[in-house]
């Protein structure tokens, strides 16, 4: 009748944070752009700290549209991979000790990605959050919102479709 004792909070945090770190740290391009992720429970917020090398219009100045696209796409792919990884880790099917670059679940593959540029990106930090609208066995659809100073004043939004990596045991 009695519920199992909940795990100590540090153990849970440690497990989730190291899973996230293993996921994010493995991508050279997002490291190069300087993208970080903050976690509240299972919710991720991506952060792109401002850097001169991200400028696309030196006169305004404004962030490069390609940087914004890359930032939102990285947020979409990682958030999607994270929702899958979360289930694996929390159910105990996957142990964080096993998470090396070689055993990491494969990343979803982008089929298409469309960015709406709503305002020019200011020369300061940017934030993004993704919503997995639909995640099926083979395909997923994800929406991403990007903002800077005000959460309600988006500077870009995007939507994309992805092919999910297939588990090795499913042979056709």
């Amino acid at each position, binding site marked *: 009748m009695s519920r199992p004792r909940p795990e100590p909070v540090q153990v849970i945090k440690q497990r989730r944070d190291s899973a996230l770190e293993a996921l994010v740290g493995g991508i*050279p391009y997002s490291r190069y752009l300087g993208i970080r992720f903050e976690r509240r429970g299972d919710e991720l917020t991506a952060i792109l700290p401002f850097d001169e090398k991200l*400028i696309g219009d030196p006169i305004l100045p404004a962030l*490069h*549209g390609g940087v914004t696209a890359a930032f939102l796409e990285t947020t979409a792919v990682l958030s999607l991979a994270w929702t899958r990884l979360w289930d694996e880790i929390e159910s105990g099917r996957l142990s964080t000790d096993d998470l090396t670059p070689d055993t990491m679940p494969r990343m979803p593959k982008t089929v*298409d990605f469309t960015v709406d*540029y709503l305002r020019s990106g200011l020369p300061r930090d940017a934030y993004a959050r993704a919503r997995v609208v639909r995640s099926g066995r083979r395909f997923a659809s994800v929406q991403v919102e990007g903002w800077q100073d005000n959460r309600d004043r988006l500077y870009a939004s995007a939507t994309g479709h992805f092919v999910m990596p297939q588990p090795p045991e499913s042979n056709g």
Partner: protein
Amino acid sequence: MAIPPEQIARQFIEAIPHSRELGMTIEEIGGGACLISMPYDEKLIGDPRTGVIHGGAISALMDTCSGAAVMSHPTGPSATATLDLRIDYMRAATPRQTIRARAEVYHLTRSVAFVRARAYDDQEDPPVATAAGAFTLSVRDRG
């Protein structure tokens, strides 16, 4: 007197910090079309297990190339910004090969330019990705 649009476009693109960071070089430009190359670099990798470069780097290349194509249009736009850009990923880029993007303005109104672009590595067909976008247009000498 008048500086040709392709020369303005070239100077404009070569002054973009992020495009220089990624090693982008204009190979051809003029008449609302542009060809830009981007050498392979380990910092662009999206999947360390295969060495395939990240889709985001392809996006940055396509966006720059499309903007350059707009700037080189004979109507002589003074500035442009991306309204939207859709990218379709056909296949993974082959690791260690230079990526090239070719963009062309296929329609232009007073305020908007419609652009198509494709990106490829040593193999041109099928392309790595194709893109379609709408760009804002500001024109010099309105009077």
